[in-house]
C-alpha cells in the first residue's frame, strides 16, 4: 500500500492542474454564459492526456473541478461517453447525465439536457448490449422545464416529462461506475476549492476594531478542520474505489456518498465563513454552493 502518486498519475494531475489554473480567470464568465464551454473543453482535452484508467480520470477531473465544476463534468461526460459509447456523442452526452449516474431510476422521467438542444435523448448501452444510438423526441407539451442554478456552464435544464418514453436501456456496469466515480471526483474538487477559499478568507480578513485575523478564532478554525476531515475522508476512498474499479469494481457507492456529503458541508461552511461577501458573485463562494446543490441533486 502506498499513498504517493506514481509518475504516470502525477502527469494527469499536473496537466489538469495547469489547465485548471488557465481556466480559473474565466470561470465566472463560463458560468454566466459569456463564454462557450465547448471551446474550452476542446482546449482542455488537447492539453490533458486521455486517461487510461478510472483512477487517472478521477485525478484529472478532481483538479479541473477545483476551477470549474461545469468544465470538469463536461470533461468526464465526454470521456465516459467516448469510452463506452459512440465518439460522436460529445457534449450532447450531458443529456443523459442523471440517467448515466443513476442507471435509470424509477419514478418520474427526468432528463438533463443542454439548453438549445431540442429534446435530444442520448441512449447509451453496454458495449456488449444493444447498439449505441441517439434517439430524438420532441418536447412534449406537458413537460415542465427547470433550469438548474448550479453547473451553469453546462447550460442544463431538467425536464420532468409527463409521458416517460425514454428507452430503459441505460449504461450499467462499468460505464455507470466510471460515471459515478468521475461525478464524485467533481464533488471532491469543488469541496477542496471551497475549503481553500474559506481558509484564504480566514487568513485575509480581520475582525475590527481589534484588527484581529479571523484565523485566530478557534470556532472558525474548527469549522475548516471539520471540512478538511470530510474532504480527505471522501478523497481517499474515492481513489481507492477508482483503483479497485480497474480490478474488481468495489466501493463506488461509498465514494459517491462521501463525496456528495463532503461537497455539501464544504460549500455551505465556506459560504457561512465568508459572511456577506459570500453572497457576492465577485467571490466564488455562491457559485460553489450552487454547483454543489446541482451535483448533489444529480447524484440521486
Amino acid at each position: 500500500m502506498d499513498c504517493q502518486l506514481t509518475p504516470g498519475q502525477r502527469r494527469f494531475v499536473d496537466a489538469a492542474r495547469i489547465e485548471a489554473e488557465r481556466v480559473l480567470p474565466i470561470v465566472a464568465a463560463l458560468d454566466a454564459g459569456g463564454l462557450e464551454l465547448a471551446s474550452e473543453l476542446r482546449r482542455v482535452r488537447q492539453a490533458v492526456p486521455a486517461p487510461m484508467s478510472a483512477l487517472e480520470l478521477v485525478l484529472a477531473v478532481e483538479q479541473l473541478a477545483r476551477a470549474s465544476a461545469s468544465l470538469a463534468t463536461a470533461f468526464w461526460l465526454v470521456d465516459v461517453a467516448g469510452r463506452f459509447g459512440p465518439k460522436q456523442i460529445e457534449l450532447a452526452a450531458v443529456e443523459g447525465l442523471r440517467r448515466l449516474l443513476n442507471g435509470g431510476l424509477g419514478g418520474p422521467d427526468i432528463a438533463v439536457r443542454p439548453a438549445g438542444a431540442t429534446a435530444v435523448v442520448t441512449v447509451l448501452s453496454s458495449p456488449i448490449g444493444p447498439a449505441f444510438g441517439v434517439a430524438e423526441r420532441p418536447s412534449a407539451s406537458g413537460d415542465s422545464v427547470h433550469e438548474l442554478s448550479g453547473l451553469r456552464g453546462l447550460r442544463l435544464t431538467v425536464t420532468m416529462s409527463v409521458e416517460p418514453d425514454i428507452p430503459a436501456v441505460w449504461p450499467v456496469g462499468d460505464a455507470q461506475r466510471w460515471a459515478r466515480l468521475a461525478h464524485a471526483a467533481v464533488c471532491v474538487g469543488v469541496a477542496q476549492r471551497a475549503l481553500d477559499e474559506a481558509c484564504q478568507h480566514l487568513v485575509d480578513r480581520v475582525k475590527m476594531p481589534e484588527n484581529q485575523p479571523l484565523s485566530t478564532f478557534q470556532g472558525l478554525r474548527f469549522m475548516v478542520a471539520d471540512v478538511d476531515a470530510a474532504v480527505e475522508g471522501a478523497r481517499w476512498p474515492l481513489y481507492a474505489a477508482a483503483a479497485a474499479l480497474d480490478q474488481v469494481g468495489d466501493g463506488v457507492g461509498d465514494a459517491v456518498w462521501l463525496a456528495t456529503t463532503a461537497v455539501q458541508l464544504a460549500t455551505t461552511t465556506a459560504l457561512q465563513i465568508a459572511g456577506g461577501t459570500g453572497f457576492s458573485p465577485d467571490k466564488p463562494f455562491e457559485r460553489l454552493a450552487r454547483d454543489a446543490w446541482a451535483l448533489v441533486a444529480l447524484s440521486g
Partner: protein
Amino acid sequence: MEFALDSQTQIVEDRARRFAREVLAPRANELDRTGAGVDEQLRAVHAAGLFELLIDRDEGGLGVEPLLFVRAIRALASGCPSTALCLCLHAVSAATLLVAARPDQRRKVIDGIRHDGAVCAVAVSEPRTGANPNAPETLAVRSGDGYLLSGVKSFVTNARWASFVLVAAVHEDLPGVSHFLVEPFSTPGFEVCRDWSGFGMRATGSDRVVLDRCRVAGDAVLGEPGKSAQVTRSRGPVTPLGQAAVSLGAAENAVSRLAELDLLAPETPARREVRARLAAASALLDRAAIHAARPSPATQRAVPEAKLVCDTAAIRIADLADEIARSAGIFGDPTLDRCRRDVRAGAVMTLNAEVCRDNIARSLLGMGK
C-alpha cells in the same frame, strides 16, 4: 498510489481478526458488565504471538510497520475494544521505554514481555494537569542514591497488571520532566486504586495510581534527568493512530453485531452511511499509518485527520447501528450498547477531537502551534 495490502499485513490482520472473533469477542460483554480486567485476554494475545508488535525484530519482536500495527489493533478491537486498547498502549509504552532504556533495562523488559507476557504502561495523566507530558505535578525528590516519587496519576491503562510503568515527574532541584521506569509489583509506595468504572472501555483497568513516596533507584530515570523530550518524542504518531484503530475496530464490532442479527440489508440511508463512514475512516487511517512510517510534512496533518475521522465516524456508526437495531425491534442489545459507550473513548483520549481540529486548522492556515 497502491491500495492493495502486502501479503504479510494481510496474513497478520486475518490472524488477528480470527483471534478476535474466536477468543476475544465471546467474553467482551461479560468483561464490560463486570468491569473485570482484560489481563487474561492479554495473556491469550501473548500466547497467540501478537504481543511484541512494536519491538524490533533484531530484539525478538515482530517489529511491524505502523500500517500493520493499526490493522492488527483494529482487527482485535473488532472483537474486544478494551483488550485492543490495552494491547495498543502496552505496545506503545514498551516501544517508548525501550528507546531510552539502558541495555540492561532493555534486556529485562524485552525478556519479560517475550517470555512472561509482561505488560507495560504509561503514567502521564494527572487529575489537575491532564495528559500534558510537559507539565506533571508528580514530584521526584532525591533520597540517598535514588528518588522518592509523590503524586497522583489518572487513567493509567493496564495499571492493575503492568510489570513496567513509565512515570512522568518533575524534579525538585532540576528543570524539565523525567520519565522513571517503575516496576509496581516490587516497588513500595506504588498503589493502584482499582477504582476504574468508566462509561466505556470498562475492562481496561484504567485506574488511578497514587505514588506515596514511591522509592525508585537512581538509575530508574530513562535518558538524562529532566530531558524527557527524547522519550516522549519517540512515541510519535503511533499512539493516536493506535487509539484511532481501536475506535474503528469498536465500530466494526457494532457492524458485525448487525450482521449477526441479520440487519445489514436491505440498503437504507442509515446502512449506506455506516458503510461509507467505515470506508472513509479506514482509508484515512491506512494513509496516516503509511505517512507515519516515513514522516514528512504531510504527516503533521494526516495523523490528526485520521484520528478525528476515525473517532467521529466510530461514534456515528455505533449510534446508527443501535438505531438500525431499534428500528427492527431489538432494544438494549448488550454488544451494541457496549460499542456505543466504547467508541466514545477515542474522541476524549490523547489528541482528542478538539486538539485534532486545532492541529488540522493550524496546518491548513499556516499557523504555528
